[in-house]
């Protein structure tokens, strides 16, 4: 495998980075990087860390990172995850209020501990902390329920003062969305599976629209809705498929669509194969709506969406 850390890879311009990921020779991970400056989304860091975790240190070849911003990778804990000596020396400062370095979370109990202990370190006001811990909890719990990821979930996050935005990356190396969804629903491609996973009422645990007593099939729809209302980026990459919710037009009224393809988005189904799922989300704290308002919007659309989905899914069979 070869992965190149580019000069810039944010959710808005991440496609070239994803397309350049070389999945050949899975026994070796070769990491190269832009020599001038590296400015990358936490999802990129989490992806590289997840790749490295699946390998032994001798299987990881990382060129000497020359970029002036190389300290960032060190501080986020990337080289610790790769178990290699980067040769980069830094003086570590308290991360509180600025970032969450790479974390590996291996089960549901550890997730609860993480949410309880780490979120307060971001020093957010209650109205900002609420959607962020909600998103983290739901996305990571999805991994434990559906992904069968041997390395658990890898996440990191960074607060950007200038844009007043928190960017989060959550990655696993599990079975991927297609395998989970297609066991019970009609999905032939990774992108079709991502589309269904984002559709309210559809879960990988039952064929029944509306879910079971443990899964409603609502989690990803809620996350997408939070991103839609706040006009943030939200990206899911699994297998060869990638779906990216683009920032909604400020001038238009917000509509929460059951079908993610009706939202403003980009997508692709011929990306290099990612074993598992990678999710990136940006949360702009300037535009964060009051959480209860946001939930009210979701409530107004959710039941209708499930009903529509059920009608669209179950048809009379005439023979």
């Amino acid at each position, binding site marked *: 495998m070869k992965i190149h850390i580019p000069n810039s890879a944010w959710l808005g311009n991440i496609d070239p980075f994803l397309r350049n990921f070389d999945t050949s020779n899975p026994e070796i991970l070769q990491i190269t990087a832009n020599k001038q400056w590296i400015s990358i989304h936490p999802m990129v860091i989490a992806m590289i860390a997840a790749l490295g975790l699946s390998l032994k240190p001798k299987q990881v070849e990382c060129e000497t990172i020359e970029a002036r911003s190389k300290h960032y990778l060190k501080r986020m804990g990337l080289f610790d995850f790769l178990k290699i000596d980067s040769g980069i020396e830094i003086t570590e400062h308290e991360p509180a209020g600025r970032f969450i370095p790479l974390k590996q979370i291996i089960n*549901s109990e550890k*997730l*609860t501990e993480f*949410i*309880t202990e780490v979120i307060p370190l971001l020093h957010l006001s*209650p109205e900002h902390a*609420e959607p962020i*811990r*909600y998103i983290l*909890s*739901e996305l990571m*719990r999805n991994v434990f329920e559906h992904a069968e990821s041997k390395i658990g979930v890898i996440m990191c996050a960074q607060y950007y003062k200038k844009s007043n935005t928190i960017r989060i990356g959550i990655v696993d190396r599990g079975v991927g969305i297609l395998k989970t969804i297609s066991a019970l629903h009609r999905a032939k491609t990774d992108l079709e599976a991502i589309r269904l996973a984002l559709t309210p*009422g559809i879960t990988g645990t039952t064929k029944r629209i*509306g*879910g079971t*007593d*443990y*899964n*409603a099939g*609502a*989690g990803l729809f*809620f996350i997408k809705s939070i991103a839609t209302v706040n006009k943030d980026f939200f990206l899911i990459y699994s297998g060869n498929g990638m779906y990216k919710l683009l920032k909604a037009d400020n001038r238009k009224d917000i509509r929460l669509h059951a079908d993610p393809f009706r939202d403003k988005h980009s997508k692709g189904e011929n990306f290099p194969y990612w074993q598992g799922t990678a999710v990136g989300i940006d949360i702009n704290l300037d535009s964060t709506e009051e*959480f*209860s308002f946001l*939930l*009210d919007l*979701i*409530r107004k659309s*959710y*039941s209708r969406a*499930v*009903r529509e989905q*059920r009608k669209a899914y179950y048809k009379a069979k005439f023979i």
Partner: protein
Amino acid sequence: MKIIKLLPKTGVFAENKDIARDIRIKDITPVLEKNEEITLDFEGVESATQSFIHALISGSIRDFGNEILDNIYFKNCNKSVQEIINIVVDYMQAAT
């Protein structure tokens, strides 16, 4: 009426579905089976996820029917928790 205080079990952020399912199976279902009333007291709970509330109550609505909501009281819920409960109750009723 049985009262279940959620805070000691869930902490201020009720998000662990396994805990929700345990509460439903061990605390809620036995009360509802006897057609008695139960109060879920959210005092001190700042927020909850839809997944948590779903795991907490959807099974009861499915097993006993929509009318079982007459036997369940939600106490000391802030605005966000109320919204989440309303979402789950709405879609569970729409589903039956």
